[in-house]
Every structure is written in C-alpha cells, then in structure tokens.
C-alpha cells in the first residue's frame, strides 16, 4: 500500500505557519527590548530624581503598551496550528515540545502579565523602587518567555534529551536539562533576544530622530538616543558574537544548512567565507558547473567559523548528497536506505506486538534503534532533497549579516554624534536612523528564513521530514484559514501602525499639534 502525500497541503501548511510566525515576530522584538530601555531610563530617574527621565520612561512605556496590547495573543494562532495543521508532528514531539511551551505559559507569561499592571498603573501608587523592580521583572519575564519558545525551536534543529517510544510513536523526554541547556538552544536564545534588543533600540532611535528632524521634544529625543544607541551598540556587538556561536553549531549539527548559507557545493579544506557573491542561476548538484557568477571570499574564514580550525574540511552540498569516503561522510542514498530499514523495522515491530510475538518485536526494535538516527531519511524520495533552497538561504544570510555589521557602525556613529551633541547638524544620519528601523526588521526576518527554511526538509532535524508532519486534513481548510489569518493579522498590524504613528505625532504630552520645543 502506498500513501499519498498532498503537496498542496504541505506547502499551504508551511506557508500559513510562516505567515503567522512572521506577523507574530513584528510585535515581539519591541516587547523584548523596549522594557529594558524603559527600565534603564527609570533607573536613572530613581537615582537622580530628575523628572524628565521619568517623563521619558512614561512615553516609551506608552508606546510599549500599544505594541503589547495589539501583539499579545497573536502567538495563540501558532499554538492552534500545531494541533490542526501539524497533528503528526505534535503527537510525535508533544512530550518534548509541550514542556517548554507549558513552562512559557505558566512561568514567564504570568510573571510578565502580573508585573505589567504595576508597570503601567503603578506610577506614583507604589514606591519608586518597587515600581522599578516591576519594570525589570516585566523585561525579565519577556526574555524568559522567549527562552522557552526558543528552547522548543532549538530542539527541532538539534534534537537531544529524548528517546523514541515505538509503542506510542512519541519522542519522550529523558533529560530535561539536556533540552534546556543544549548549546544550540543557548545560542539561539541569546542571538534572537539580542536581535530584539537591536530592533527596539532602532525603534527608539528612529522616533527620537524624527523628533529631532521636526525640532520637537528635543531633550527627550537626545536622552533617548543616548540610552537606545548605547544599548543597541552593545546588543549588536553581542549579536555578532552569538551569531558566530550559531554558525559554529550549525556547522556541527546542520551541515546542509551551512552549505546552503555559503552556496558551497564542493567541500574544501580551509574554506573561505563568501563576503559578496552572485550564485549561478540553475546550478545543480553534480553538474560540474561553477556555483558563482562572481564572488569575493575571505580566505579560510568559513573553516574557522565552523570548526575553529583554519584548515578544517567544510562539507559542501555535493559531499553531503553524494558522500565523501575520504572525509567519512555518508551519502544521502545510504542514509535513505538506513532510514527505510528503520521504518520497516518499526512496521515489523508494530505487527509483532499485535501478534504478541515478543521475540520478533525485540529483534525489530533492536534494528530500529540501530538505524533510528536515519529514520527521517526513510521518507525521502530524492537524495538532493536533503539540501535546502540554496539561493534563498544564501541571499537571506547575506542580508542578515551585512545589515548586522552595518548596524554596529551606525549605532557607533549615532552614539558618538549624540554624545558630542552634533546629531541635529547631521540630518542625513537622522533620516538614515529612521530607515534603519524597517531594515532591522528585514535583517531579523532574513535570519528567521535562514533558520527555518534552512532546516528543510525537516521539522525535526534528520528524524521527521516536513511532509510527514502534517495532519490528515483537506488542503482547502488550510487555504481558507491562511487567508483568514492573513486578513486578521494585517488588520492588527495596520491598527498598530496607525495608533503608534498617531501617538508618536502627539508626543509625550499628548499634544494634538506641535509639542514643546525644549
């Protein structure tokens, strides 16, 4: 018997998840980063007693509140999608995936939600110190919330701390700490929240820059820029550091993703990092054509980043698909064969258990466990399918990295001119800072594309392909809800944009026109 896989169902399910996740991500970074900036500002007020700092904190808290109110709950849709569109994945991974998500709901979200009330309504009602602690707890709660979600996501890229139970067809957690403290999870968490800090910093710099261009709320704008640019500079430097850690773990655990990120088809020792390059359209694995129309490469840097060794061998897409005996890399065909052995052993185990033939069941289980790590490959048809979409990943990665480094320089320049009080004279820089805010989002989205599209064809790296993770439902239901969510989330984003711009135009004193000029 052969089971049909409806490609439309798989693609629309993927599209829907990507759509909702990207919309959800429009709200998250501001929640992650703005709370810290508000907390720093309020700390200065508590220490100095200067009322202007409190006014600044209150204004950014108002904008934070708008973003929080409109964005809260958009993640619920993602949770629902696991149950409806990804039922197989949810069942197979529920025991692992559910634990961090539950922890997020119980610990982090409640912490954040409880103290957010004190943060918004506690000005003058509670002691200054308690109010300040509440703001820090909101910030900490938001980061903790992100931690649990990213631990779950990291596990999909680097599955650890579990065993597969063939009786229940579920991965069962055997080591919670291995899941929580997996190096992949730690790097992913630090890299993602710092990207949120950078976006938040640019938001505050952009709004403040606009005030300076308009000659309004000058003191608020100048002070906010100094705080946000300092935080943004530190965060963007840390972002580059954690990005390096992420690249290292991708090289160790997801070499196909790394090959796609670098457009690397033929593996090499002492591989260089492509700084700028254009991929040759239509390039196929094993066609003997050059991969690039042109490229500028930094010698040996990819080997250093991926393996901490300038002469290390970095496998290319062709090594991973066709195999490389010299480097002890198994071909995709061999992995697919072993995956089929695992799946056949699982089927035999199921039959043997049904017939109460425990001897055969035990033999089948042993064969399954021996080939378990190739289980996912058994579903693949085409060996080339283990390599994700190279051009999409390659260019997305470059957008992320180039913008990331540009942001360090931009924050440095903004901070220098802000501290020397020359920012208002450089109006081009103020305009650039406004443009940098959407660019920061673009860089962040590109990063998510590298992470998630780069993991394809897997939902759980090596163990479960995306096409087997979906539910047995009609593709039309997914198409219908896709457009429903698109409409709903677009309305929310437009509402946020309208309310945010109106509030920014009115300024901290809620003036309908103008605002004070000092």
């Amino acid at each position: 018997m052969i089971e049909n896989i409806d490609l439309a169902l798989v693609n629309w399910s993927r599209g829907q998840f990507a759509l909702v996740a990207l919309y959800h991500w429009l709200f998250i970074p501001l929640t992650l980063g703005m709370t810290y900036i508000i907390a720093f500002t309020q700390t200065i007020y508590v220490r100095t007693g200067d009322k202007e700092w409190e006014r600044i904190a209150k204004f950014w808290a108002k904008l934070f509140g708008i973003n929080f109110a409109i964005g809260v709950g958009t993640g619920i849709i993602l949770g629902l999608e696991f149950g409806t569109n990804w039922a197989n994945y949810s069942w197979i991974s529920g025991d692992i995936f559910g634990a961090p998500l539950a922890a997020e709901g119980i610990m982090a979200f409640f912490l954040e939600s409880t103290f957010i009330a004190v943060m918004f309504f506690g000005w003058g009602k509670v002691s200054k110190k308690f109010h300040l602690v509440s703001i820090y707890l909101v910030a900490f709660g938001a980061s903790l919330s992100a931690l649990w979600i990213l631990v779950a996501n990291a596990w999909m890229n680097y599955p650890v701390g579990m065993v597969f139970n063939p009786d229940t067809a579920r991965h069962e957690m055997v080591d919670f700490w291995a899941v929580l403290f997996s190096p992949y999870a730690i790097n992913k968490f630090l890299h993602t929240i710092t990207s949120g800090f950078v976006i938040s910093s640019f938001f505050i710099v952009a709004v403040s820059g606009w005030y300076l261009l308009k000659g309004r709320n000058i003191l608020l704008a100048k002070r906010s820029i100094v705080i946000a640019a300092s935080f943004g500079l530190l965060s963007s430097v840390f972002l580059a550091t954690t990005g390096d850690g992420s690249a290292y773990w991708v090289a160790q655990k997801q070499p196909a993703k790394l090959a796609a990120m670098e457009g690397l088809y033929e593996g090499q020792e002492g591989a260089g990092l492509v700084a700028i390059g254009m991929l040759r359209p239509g390039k196929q694995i094993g066609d003997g054509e050059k991969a690039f129309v042109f490229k500028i490469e930094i010698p040996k840097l990819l080997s250093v980043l991926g393996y901490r060794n300038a002469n290390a061998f970095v496998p290319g897409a062709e090594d991973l698909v066709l195999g490389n005996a010299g480097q002890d890399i198994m071909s995709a065909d061999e992995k697919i064969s072993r995956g089929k052995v695992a799946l056949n052993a699982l089927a035999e185990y199921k039959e043997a258990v049904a017939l109460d033939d425990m001897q055969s069941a035990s033999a089948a289980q042993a064969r399954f466990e021996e080939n378990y790590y190739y289980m996912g490959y058994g579903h693949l048809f085409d060996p080339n399918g283990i390599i994700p979409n190279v051009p999409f990943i390659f260019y997305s990665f470059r957008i992320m990295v180039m913008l990331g480094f540009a942001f360090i320089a931009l924050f440095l320049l903004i901070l220098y001119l802000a501290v020397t009080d020359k920012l208002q004279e450089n109006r081009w820089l103020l305009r650039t800072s406004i443009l940098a805010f959407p660019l920061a989002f673009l860089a962040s989205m590109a990063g998510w594309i590298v992470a998630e599209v780069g993991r394809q064809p897997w939902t759980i790296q090596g163990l479960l392909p995306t096409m087997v993770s979906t539910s047995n439902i009609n593709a039309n239901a997914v198409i219908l809800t896709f457009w429903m969510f698109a409409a709903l989330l677009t309305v929310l984003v437009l509402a946020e944009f309208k309310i945010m711009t109106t509030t920014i135009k009115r300024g901290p004193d809620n003036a309908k026109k103008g605002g004070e000029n000092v």
Partner: protein
Amino acid sequence: MSARVTFAFIAYLWSFFKHLKVRQFLKTIAGIFSSGFELIRSSRLAKILLLIVFIKFMIFYGFLKGFLYPKYLKPHYENDAHRTEQVLHDLTTPHKIVTDD
C-alpha cells in the same frame, strides 16, 4: 486539643500577615487597580486598546479556539490509541507525492 491547635495556627497567621502590613499591601493593590480604571475611563487610547484586546480575544478564544477548530479544523481521533495507530501508519507506510497538476 485540635481547637487549640487551630486557634494557635490562626493566631500565628494573623501575626504573620500583620507583620507583612497586609492592609497597606491591599491598599496598594487597590490603588493600582483604581489607577488602571481611571486611566481607562479618562484615556481614549486606553479605551481603543482595551477594545482591540477584547475583540481579538473574542476571535482567538471564542471563535477560533472555541468553535472553528474543535468543530471543523481539528483532526479527529477517537482516543490516544487511535491517534498512535494513525501516526505509526503515516510513519511506516511508503509515500508518493501528489500534486494538483
């Protein structure tokens, strides 16, 4: 005996909460809530945001989670054993891809 223990326990709790300045704590909480209500009453922005949150949660929890998903979208399994059977079937049965073309 048990009445004396209960009385002692209540007395201990009373002294504990008295030490924590419960009244002051409750007064602060009430102050935060009244501040919240006052803000919502006096601010047009707060009213709009509250309305958005209310409508959004009606759609997310009431319509999507409460009605649409369980009734029409959620894959139905009789029980966990049935679901295990279905997932094992999907994992172990050979596949072929079908497209609309």
